[in-house]
């Protein structure tokens, strides 16, 4: 008994010391204001999101250090087209959404000209907290934008449904086919579903894109051809397009059922929350809307279930983790209150804040702490050989448009795989 008590006391003591040590480490990692905390100014973040509560929560936290700094998020209409005008106008934002494809795009030279080099050591931004593959550097090795969310492609899995039906969540193509067949036998007419009415964010693209990019990743020459929209690159789409076609042909996906989903975001989520969809194919951006809509779904509120977001297992080894930036922040170097703007960026670009913001938004965090959100945990298990870093590869936007249209049209039966392959570079 004495030994037990002594051991218990020793453990308590060690834990106390350990917790003290832990606290001190946390304290050293805490953000420390470098400017006058009484500074009063306005900072505007402009973006394309309709709303950005996760960022607004960061404003509140930043105000704990700088209570007199008023931060606001502004959604710009026709973002991509109006951004240059806005940056040059009287109402120019301090920080604005930016995308990799803007770099080197002559249409966005004016926009790029406003971007501050965030790798400047004097800014003291902790860029190391972001997964290295997500950081894009321009020809001058500048970092003009930092990702605050990353994007990937996969499927929402109703884990409880699989458990209930005694079916294992598939991790390979074979398992996927078997699971779909089993589920279909259990009355699930469309074991997999997704948005199918338009090409934007349609399930066909979500299935095909990772496979296409993964194929290109293995062949740098093909990547160059694909980026240049060379028709020869069309052949490299074939495995991806056949994968889409196979899912539909094997009745893993009932297209008619998918057509009942009227938009590519809210309706996708609400349909999944009905509880009778084992797998809902969507992009990570769609997953970001799940948390808020849990309460909005009467079905989910009535019968909640455990779900996660997993790679679509389209190969014998499993699915791919396409790790690409979703939203990136650039600092307008011509804005008012640039010091405080950089201070906010220094505050934001940390493991803690980026994770927190990703958690609120339920998007994939750009930090290495992928498993932090249980919904995205399956992506944390994907080995590096099946992880594709699009920024590292240098995937360009026109390429994505080609595969999106091709996959959509093949999926809907508007084009055959051969026709789609042949039309690469000319698909609109």
């Amino acid at each position, binding site marked *: 008994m004495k030994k037990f008590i002594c051991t218990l006391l020793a453990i308590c003591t060690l834990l106390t010391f350990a917790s003290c040590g832990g606290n001190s480490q946390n304290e050293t990692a805490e953000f420390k204001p470098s400017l006058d905390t009484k500074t009063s100014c306005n900072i505007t973040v402009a973006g394309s999101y309709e*709303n950005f*509560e996760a960022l607004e929560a960061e404003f509140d936290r930043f105000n704990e250090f700088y209570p007199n700094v008023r931060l606001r998020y502004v959604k710009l*209409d026709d973002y991509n087209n*109006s951004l240059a005008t806005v940056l040059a106008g009287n109402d120019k934002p301090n920080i604005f959404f930016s995308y990799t494809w803007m770099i080197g795009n002559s249409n966005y030279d004016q926009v790029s000209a406003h971007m501050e080099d965030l790798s400047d050591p004097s800014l003291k931004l902790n860029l190391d907290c972001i997964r290295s593959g997500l950081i894009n550097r321009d020809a001058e090795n500048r970092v003009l934008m930092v990702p605050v969310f990353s994007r990937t492609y996969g499927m929402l899995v109703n884990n409880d449904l699989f458990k209930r039906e005694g079916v294992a969540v598939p991790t390979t193509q074979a398992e996927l086919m078997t699971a779909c067949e089993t589920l279909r036998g259990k009355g699930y007419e469309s074991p997999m579903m997704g948005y199918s009415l338009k090409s934007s964010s349609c399930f066909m693209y979500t299935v095909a894109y990772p496979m296409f990019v993964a194929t290109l990743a293995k062949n740098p020459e093909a990547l160059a051809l694909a980026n240049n929209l060379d028709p020869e690159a069309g052949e490299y789409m074939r495995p991806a397009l056949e994968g889409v076609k196979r899912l539909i042909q094997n009745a893993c996906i009932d297209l008619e059922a998918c057509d009942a989903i009227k938009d590519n975001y809210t309706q996708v989520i609400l349909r999944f929350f009905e509880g009778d969809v084992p797998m809902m194919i969507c992009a990570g951006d769609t997953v970001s809307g799940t948390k*808020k809509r849990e*309460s909005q779904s009467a079905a989910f509120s009535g019968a909640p279930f455990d779900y996660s977001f997993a790679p679509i297992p389209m190969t014998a080894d499993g699915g791919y983790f396409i790790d690409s930036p979703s939203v990136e922040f650039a600092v307008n170097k011509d804005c008012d209150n640039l010091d405080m703007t950089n201070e906010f960026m220094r505050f934001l670009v940390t493991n803690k804040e980026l994770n927190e913001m990703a958690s609120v938004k339920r998007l994939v965090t750009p930090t290495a702490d992928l498993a932090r959100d249980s919904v995205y945990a399956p992506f944390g298990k994907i080995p590096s050989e099946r992880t594709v870093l699009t920024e590292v590869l240098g995937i360009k936007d026109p390429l994505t448009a080609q595969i999106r249209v091709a996959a959509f049209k093949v999926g809907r039966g508007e084009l055959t795989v051969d026709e789609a392959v042949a039309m690469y570079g000319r698909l609109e």
Partner: protein
Amino acid sequence: MKNVVKKTWVILVNVFIMLAMLTFVVLYSDFENRKSTQRQIEHFENTTITMKHVTENYLEGEQRICDVWARYINSEDLTIEDAVSFIRISHVLPNASAHIVYLDTLSGLSTKARQGSTDDYSVSYARLDLLNDVSWINDIGKSINISRAYTNPVNGEQSIAFCNSVTLKDPGSGDPRNAILLRVLPIAELEEKWIFPREKFENAELSMIDADGNYIIKGHSFKNSNLFEFYKSYNVLDAAAAQELFGKITSSTGSLKMRNSRGEECILAYTPVAATEGWTLLSFIPMNDLSVNTENWLLIGFISVGLLILFIFDLAVILVFNKRLQAAAREAASANKAKTDFLSTMSHDIRTPMNAIIGLTAITEKNLGDTNSVKENLRKITLASDHLLTLINDILDISKVESGKLNLSPQTFSIVETVENLVNLSQPMIKEKNIEFNFRVIRMEKEYLYGDRLRLNQIYINILSNAIKYTEPGGRVSVDMAEEESPKEGCVRLTYIVDDTGIGMTPEYMKTMYQPFSRQTDSRVNSIQGTGLGLAITKQMVDLMGGTIDCQSEQGKGTKFTVVLDIPVADVQREDMKLDPMDVLVVDDDEIFSETASDLLKSLGATAERAGSGTEALEMIANRHKEGRDYRIVILDLKMPDVDGIETIARIRAEVDPNLPILLTSAYEWSDIEEKAKEVGANGFLSKPLFRSTLYDKINKILGTEAKSVEPENDDSDLQGMRILIAEDNDINWEIISTLLDMHGIAAERAENGRVCVEKMKSAAEGSYDLIFMDIQMPEMNGLDATKNIRALESPWASSVPIIAMTADAFSENITECLNAGMNGHIAKPIDVKLVIKEIRRTKEEERK
């Protein structure tokens, strides 16, 4: 146990009351706070409504401008260029602009050039989801057609637009073409003007939402792009309740509580904006800004601590008071018991001598024929009367002590007489108890002092009589009186030490021995007569005289009292006393006495030799006689161990010198040995202790007269023929005094009151009376007034005749009154005939001088 339970209850009740008070304060404060907050919320709502009116006026004003433009454009059949030119002319606001876009292409012209250009006025709303559906734009003048906040495609500023449908003339075909006129205002400018009154609600913010909850204008604290989404993000609400709540917000005026993004409780006031398409004005403020904090926790905390301190203080005070009250109650009970015991004792002590007086008087009446019996009874009655008198005096004194009326009446007196009186008074008891008694006086140079003789006498007598009383037969009582220098100017310090081998006192009793009514509980003490007041009175008197009294006692071994008093020296002292040079032999086994006597003789100019016994004295006298150098006088102690004083005198007379003057000294009463001493040839008697003056007088007297026998003490020849006028209204008293005086050969004449006395003095021939004894309390005229009248008589003899008060008013202040009235002395009733005779002689002597 019961006390503990009671105390616990008292504490619990106090704590309960305290808690109840604090709870009431907190609840009342909370109630007031809530009421006040509710008033603030109502005020906030009203301000929001006021803001709505202001907003409506503003929006209507802006819309009216747009309406005027639209009416003009529609009425003038203008092309888009003309319309824009018209607006440019009428436009006055620098930051505002106007756009006109065709409905079919959603493109058109702006009154201001595009950002970064000076001549590009084109504008397109094609990519903005703003004008795709224009059903919200009503006919001109029908409503306020205001857009949501959007990004101005011309300059990128977040703006709102007041809109109207207009019809333009197509510049190419000339056909009418539908377009939308937008009067565009930057939100930043609007937000600067459109603020909540800061003086009222500093942190309040305004927003405006459309019927779907989307912000038209968004305040800083409003999150999301939609109020309802914002609400749901930070507040828990089910779908049905949310639907109801949001319907209420967009259709009525009121307020609700909600959490903001920081989790703070806020008030959201809402009111619909008239003339708009389901718009609602919102005002938002943190609840803390509306809460008037009447819950002053510092005050409550202060009150709590104050109450607690008060409670503890009261508790402590009550406990202390309780203890004191208990102690006082115990003391009161003890005092009450002491008084009861005292009264019981007094009753007993008074009744005992009274019983003796009454009983013996009755016996005497029945045995008048038996002279011896009458004589014995009268002696016993006298003793009982004396004791009764002492009792009464003590009771009166203690009553004065307790009432604080004990005052001193200083007068010039002789300390020698005081000591003599002390010795005389103590002699009977000493003799009765056969106690060894020594009274030594050391260096008494100042005979006349100025003080309250009676009180001093009382102090000394009380202590000495106690010593004698509580010393058992065969014991010893010694008294030492010394005169020392006093630190007080004009005073001498008298140290009076009475040491006995009596029963002593217990330490417990010594703690309370100076308290009235206290007597030691001792079987031996109970058999001793006493009032239990003596020491209390003594202590009070010593304190009153500024002196100290100290007591050392051990039970069974004895007691030693030391009284130290600083007494002023009287102005008048006896003249220098010097004897002719002579040799004197002092014979005493008491070395201290021998030394004192020798010192006194030396100070008088004589040479003293000392002998420690009768045998030695005899030898020394014989030797001197042989040498022809006889001692001039021998002072011989009566009691000596081998050969006593009587025998020594006898042998001197027989063996050496029959004429050698011999003074016999003793601390004891003379009556027993007086006859025998005279027979053997003693020339005189000298009482111990020896005083310089008495020694001087006695030696002079013996040597001057060379008398061979002592002066007859009861010789009344000097009193024969005296005539005394006695003012006395009481017949019995008159009879007593007149009889007593008559026994000493003094003729007495009565005056029935003061007035008669005065009249008699007025009419009396000179020398008719030698003295007047004056009673004080008499009808018609009291003794004091009578004295004053007599002193005021014209006749020198009458006005100066000695007057002695003879009254039952025995207090010192009464004596002072008498002396102040012009009297020459005071005798207290009941009278002691010896004192009366002594007073008469004193008066006569003074008269003679």
